[in-house]
């Protein structure tokens, strides 16, 4: 019975172990940051950071360094640009996001094209845009852990002021809190979370992990701390189940071409969200 679920070699495979570890860290970071992304209504900004991260990931690929560095550098720089254009203002938010998004896709198009001509395969394109958690190098694990700790640490340190500023900037500024600084630091944490998410499930799908589990958690609990924990758990669950299904799919048709992990993760996240909405309002914690 178990062997029908866990195909032979699943637990002993080193790439499965690495994928499971990286995936879990990334899912926890994304859950922690993502709850605030949803509360603050910055999902589109998160998507843009992921998309422009593709430019960084692809350029890193060209330069022969780990794509994580590229994702990280470009997402953080883009967060800075978005902050300067004015993400705090509601109207500035769409504008800032749209400008950064356009520029990011332009660069990504260039670098991915160069990458394709360079080694004559589409490997870089697929890896950067759609992720490949099985193809990670072990050297990436400490980086993921450190950047993940920085992003999560920022959120936990700023927790109360960030929550108040996200609920109502007016209440926060009446309490003499530096709303803009808080928003800027949050944006940096989001850039890190998106970059981490991009290496695991790809630049384009990275927001699914950031926003999906968080949006689901918001349906299931009415307390902010629990929402963060729930989002992390859903994320880890989706990631591990996705890895398992991707591993098993090697034996599915068309034979001996495993299905991409990112597909499974994103689909599970979507199903989780739909089920959480389907729970009748009475059963849900109103």
């Amino acid at each position, binding site marked *: 019975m178990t062997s029908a679920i866990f195909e032979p070699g699943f637990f002993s495979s080193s790439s499965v172990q690495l994928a499971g570890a990286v995936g879990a860290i990334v899912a926890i970071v994304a859950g922690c940051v993502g709850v605030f992304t949803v509360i603050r209504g910055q999902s589109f900004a998160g998507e843009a950071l992921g998309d422009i991260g593709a430019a960084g990931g692809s350029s890193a690929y060209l330069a022969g360094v780990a794509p994580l560095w590229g994702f990280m550098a470009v997402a953080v720089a883009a967060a800075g640009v978005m902050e300067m254009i004015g993400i705090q203002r509601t109207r500035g938010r769409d504008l800032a996001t749209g400008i950064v998004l356009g520029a990011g896709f332009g660069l990504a198009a260039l670098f991915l094209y160069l990458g394709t001509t360079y080694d004559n395969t589409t490997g870089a394109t697929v890896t950067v845009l759609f992720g490949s958690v099985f193809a990670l190098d072990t050297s990436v694990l400490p980086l993921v852990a450190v950047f993940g700790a920085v992003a999560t640490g920022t959120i936990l340190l700023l*927790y109360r002021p960030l929550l108040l500023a996200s609920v*109502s900037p007016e*209440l926060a500024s009446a309490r*003499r809190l530096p709303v803009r600084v808080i928003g800027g630091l949050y944006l940096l944490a989001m850039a890190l979370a998106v970059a981490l998410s991009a290496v695991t499930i790809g630049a384009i799908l990275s927001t699914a992990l950031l926003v999906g589990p968080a949006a689901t958690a*918001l349906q299931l609990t*009415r307390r902010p701390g629990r929402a963060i924990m729930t989002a992390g758990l859903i994320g880890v669950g989706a990631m591990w189940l996705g890895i398992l299904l991707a591993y098993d799919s090697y034996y599915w048709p068309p034979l001996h071409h495993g299905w991409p992990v990112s597909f499974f993760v994103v689909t599970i996240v979507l199903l989780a969200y739909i089920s959480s909405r389907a729970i009748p309002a009475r059963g849900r914690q109103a």
Partner: protein
Amino acid sequence: MTTEVLTPAASTAAVQKALSIDDVSVRLGGRTVLEHVSFSLTPGEFTGLIGSNGAGKTTLFRVILELQPTTSGSIHLGSGRRSKAAIGYVPQKFLLDPDMPLRGRDLIALGLDGQRLGVPLPSKTRRARVDEMVDAVDARDFADARVGRLSGGEQQRILIAHALISRPKLLLLDEPLANLDLRAAQDVVGLLSRIAAEQRIAVLISAHEMNPLLPVMDRIVYLAAGRAASGTVDEIVRSEVLSKLYGHHVDVLRVHGRVIVVAGTGHDEHAPEEQAPDEPADDGAPAVEIV
């Protein structure tokens, strides 16, 4: 142009003021928003800040909160020192997503320590303080529901508790009755009046409609075109005082315990009930104004 009328209680002096505004003017982009405004608030008193839209009420609040610099004049808090919780503030528009994972009591707790870093640890004293505020604003029935799904009046109660839990000596409320039905407005007004008296807090509440506040208002600060007159309602809501404030003749009518302020220009007179309460009055003196 400020008409400061001292009440007997205030003139017996030595009363520690919760807030003193002294000759404050604010110019924004070449336009004078507040002009030589002076008044003071006494602990335990309920003061209405009355004026039509555009009269400068929100600017005055922003000045008190130090979110808006003054062009001239000075502001003193009774406590002297400004801490992060010296002033309780309830903002004008408060719209939360119904799915926001935040219970009423979570928002109240943020009023206690929302400015602190780190994650709040479970604490009996913290919980007791929150429970005490939940009781003080009669919010037991809905304090555990999501804030975004509460009615306007329920949200106001939670916000008042949020503002009061840090035990400020001054509570500012920006148009708290604007979106409430009559019954909910009466409840909120009664609650505020009780809290002001019991906890010796100076309450300053802005409104474009003075009538719901008449039964509880100890003092009034009347704003028109950036200028202010303050005193008791009987001292200020009179034809001579308001005419001087507006700069042209104004009649004050008292009908069935309600006050109607009519600018007597003779033309463009609507029946009072036809005037939308939130109709903008650019010159600060509409032909007919219900306040």
